[in-house]
């Protein structure tokens, strides 16, 4: 008997990920005990209504279709899916970098393998989206993307948004094969790249102007020709062809504030350098890792640039030792205390460790971070920093129905994830409550 039951559990556990049965037609109503919308205060005993993959309504008494699928989560906690903003899930044998120091045109999507086994486990811990960037071995490593863990085997179907930010790293990469230069050289060669980009942009504009001029002249010339074919008119000269350079194109986007530059920095000096760069070139900056940030919290707060902090505890990763010598577990608490816009990432040893997002938040709380801020730092804040807040990060009408149902408060270490929905589709369900 037990055996059979167990089998059912097992089967369901496995199958649920594979089931791609889209529920788009049907309504789903979640009758929740406590809703943590993150965007605003918790709501007791009310209903979340899901219509074609989006949240249609949240409230006490909502009209629900007769045929709607009703999920009873009374006495349970309901929250938006969590986001690991420092994940390496899907990355093929941890190969995060091209062995070049300036390679912004790379796209992390080319390096991902959707067929890995770990993804379902991560989703089962309430993590519905991961942000993956190239690694820290190149000074400028390429652009990152946010993927949803909806169990699809097609990167395209998982992709929420790519070209989110260009990943750079100061200091960390200085001791590896991509460049044998020291810190200052790192710093300067990034500057150089950006300066060259400026020149490039200038040339491009120039060329465009000339092209436009030429087009005009050509038009006139053609008209003349038509009018009097015999008459001798000298033909306007076509400007030389302009070869677009992918590397520069990407950095141009950064300089024109289309996409931010995400710089991995650990030491105080590097953080300050990063801030200085941002001032000099006026691009949108995201501070990554930010190990020693707590030492200059005010400066960071003043610069208004957001931080993706991680790992909260040094246990999560084997970080480059020297970079991490002054790692402090209170880092997150201090930064957010000073009002820095802060997202918490796991940045674990491997892909699967993305499941520890809630754990990271809890550790941050234990060391003085505000509970709500911590929760926000693994849901809404990363969504905002990564520019996907219109889709995910909180429970609000109109957003994707990426919803996690837990037996207890997400920061309660022993509470279990009961169910995970991504765009209304159940990707995980705990089947075996006694």
């Amino acid at each position, binding site marked *: 008997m037990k055996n059979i039951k167990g089998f059912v559990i097992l089967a369901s556990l496995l199958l649920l990920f594979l089931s791609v049965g889209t529920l788009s037609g049907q309504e789903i109503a979640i009758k929740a005990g406590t809703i943590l919308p993150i965007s605003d205060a918790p709501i007791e005993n009310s209903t979340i209504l899901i219509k074609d993959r989006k949240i249609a309504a949240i409230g006490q008494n909502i009209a629900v279709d007769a045929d709607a699928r009703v999920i009873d989560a009374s006495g349970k906690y309901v929250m938006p899916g969590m986001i690991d903003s420092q994940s390496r899930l899907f990355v093929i044998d941890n190969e995060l970098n091209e062995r070049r120091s300036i390679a912004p045109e790379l796209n992390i999507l080319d390096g991902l393998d959707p067929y890995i086994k*770990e993804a379902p*486990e991560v989703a*089962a811990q309430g993590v519905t989206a991961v942000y993956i960037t190239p690694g820290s071995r190149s000074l400028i490593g390429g652009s990152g993307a946010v993927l949803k863990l909806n169990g699809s085997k097609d990167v395209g179907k998982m992709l929420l948004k790519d070209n989110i930010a260009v990943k750079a790293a100061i200091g960390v990469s200085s001791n590896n094969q991509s460049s044998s230069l020291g810190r200052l050289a790192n710093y300067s060669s990034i500057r150089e790249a950006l300066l060259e980009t400026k020149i490039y942009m200038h040339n491009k504009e120039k060329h465009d102007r000339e092209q436009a001029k030429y087009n005009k002249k050509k038009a006139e010339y053609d008209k003349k020709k038509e009018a009097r074919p015999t008459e001798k008119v000298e033909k306007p000269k076509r400007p030389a062809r302009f070869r677009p350079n992918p590397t520069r194109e990407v950095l141009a986007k950064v300089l024109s504030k289309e996409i931010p530059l995400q710089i991995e920095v650990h030491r105080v000096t590097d953080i300050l350098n990063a801030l200085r760069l941002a001032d000099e070139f006026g691009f949108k900056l995201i501070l990554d890792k930010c190990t020693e940030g707590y030492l200059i919290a005010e400066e960071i707060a003043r610069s208004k640039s957001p931080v993706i902090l991680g790992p909260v*505890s*040094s*246990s*999560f990763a084997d970080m480059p*030792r*020297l970079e991490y*010598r002054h790692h402090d*577990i*209170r880092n997150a*608490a*201090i930064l957010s*205390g000073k009002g820095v816009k802060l997202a918490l990432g796991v940045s*674990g*040893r*491997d*892909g*699967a*460790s993305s*499941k*520890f997002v809630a*754990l990271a938040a*809890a*550790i941050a*709380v*234990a*060391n*003085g971070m505000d*509970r709500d801020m911590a929760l926000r730092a693994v849901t809404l804040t990363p969504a905002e920093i990564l520019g996907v807040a219109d889709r995910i990060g909180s429970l609000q009408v109109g957003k994707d129905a990426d919803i996690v149902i837990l037996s207890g408060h997400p*920061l*309660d*270490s*022993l509470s*279990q994830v009961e169910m995970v929905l991504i765009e209304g589709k159940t990707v995980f369900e705990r089947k075996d409550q006694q």
Partner: protein
Amino acid sequence: MSISFCLTSSGSESQSLAIRASKIWTITDGVITNGVIIINEGKIQSVGENIEIPEGIRVLDMSDKDVMPGMIDAHCHIGLSLDIFSEMDETVAAVAADMLILDAFNPYSDDVKKALSCGVTTIMLAPGNRNPVGGLPAVLKLDISKANDWVLVRAAGVEFSVMNEALMFDREPTSRAGLMDLIREELDKAKEDKDDGFNPTRDILKRVVVANKTAYIWARNVDEIASAMAIVDEYELKAVLVTAEQGDEIADMIAERNLPVIYPPLLLSSRDKDLKRAGKMANSGIKIAFASLTPRTDLHDLRTSAILAAKYGLDTETALKSLTINAAEILGVADRLGSISEGKDADLVILNGDPLQLTSSIEMVLINGNIVYQRQEE
């Protein structure tokens, strides 16, 4: 609050002290709500619900806090040389039996303060796993302010390692078979017990094969554990398995030899399968204690290991025990540590919540009744 007051007069041991707490996790006999602990001469004099506090005794009012015994890290490598790179293996020779890890320990290193802030009051300072015979671990109390008795056990048992980590390409042995061969050879020599003058290695190994001191054997995977058990059987050793992560695969055999297991930090593994192992082993009757293996992981995450294990199927009671009394028993210091009960050392951790909640932070740590750490709000 009252802490500020008591700080002024903290330090001297002679004074006795009373702690009023909302929850006292005694570990050995349940949880006492709104209880009182009376400390005298650094020992716990009495603990219970309604004990009247003697006149004129200093009172720590922690009536909104929880109290648990100081946590014991069953295996770590803190305070060795530089604060980040630690020297734990003497890898020149494969057999380094007579190496005293205590000789490398710096009691004033930051790690020690860090440990206290994490609620760890006692550690087993151990050599690493890169020598087949690794040396002599020590059990230390982190109360270095008083030089009285912070070294509980100077040389506790002997460390062995049958892991692949103990193999080096340029040192004998280079294969697991060769490693076992070597260990046997050494133990045989020790067993022969013939007196040929000064031979520290032999004398120390005698402690294990003759005097029945504990052998701490590093073994992670099933085959390594099997080799360890083979040695244990052949020489009838009193042994402890260190980082026997895959032990659950052969839990029954470990249990029937009742070998305790010092379990590695759970944060080193990320797959569900591995996270469940600790629970499985404990449930099949193996006594486990957690270790932080610092600097592999942060000392703070000693508690995280227990909590994660609990989340993945270890029952909460055992989880707490494996941070305290189990460790104390495995390290052979249970007569003084590991629980809050009359006569034991007053090594206490005061948290602002359930010890098995990651979110509850450590407010204060006492060793022998002295406040050795106190959390500052910034």
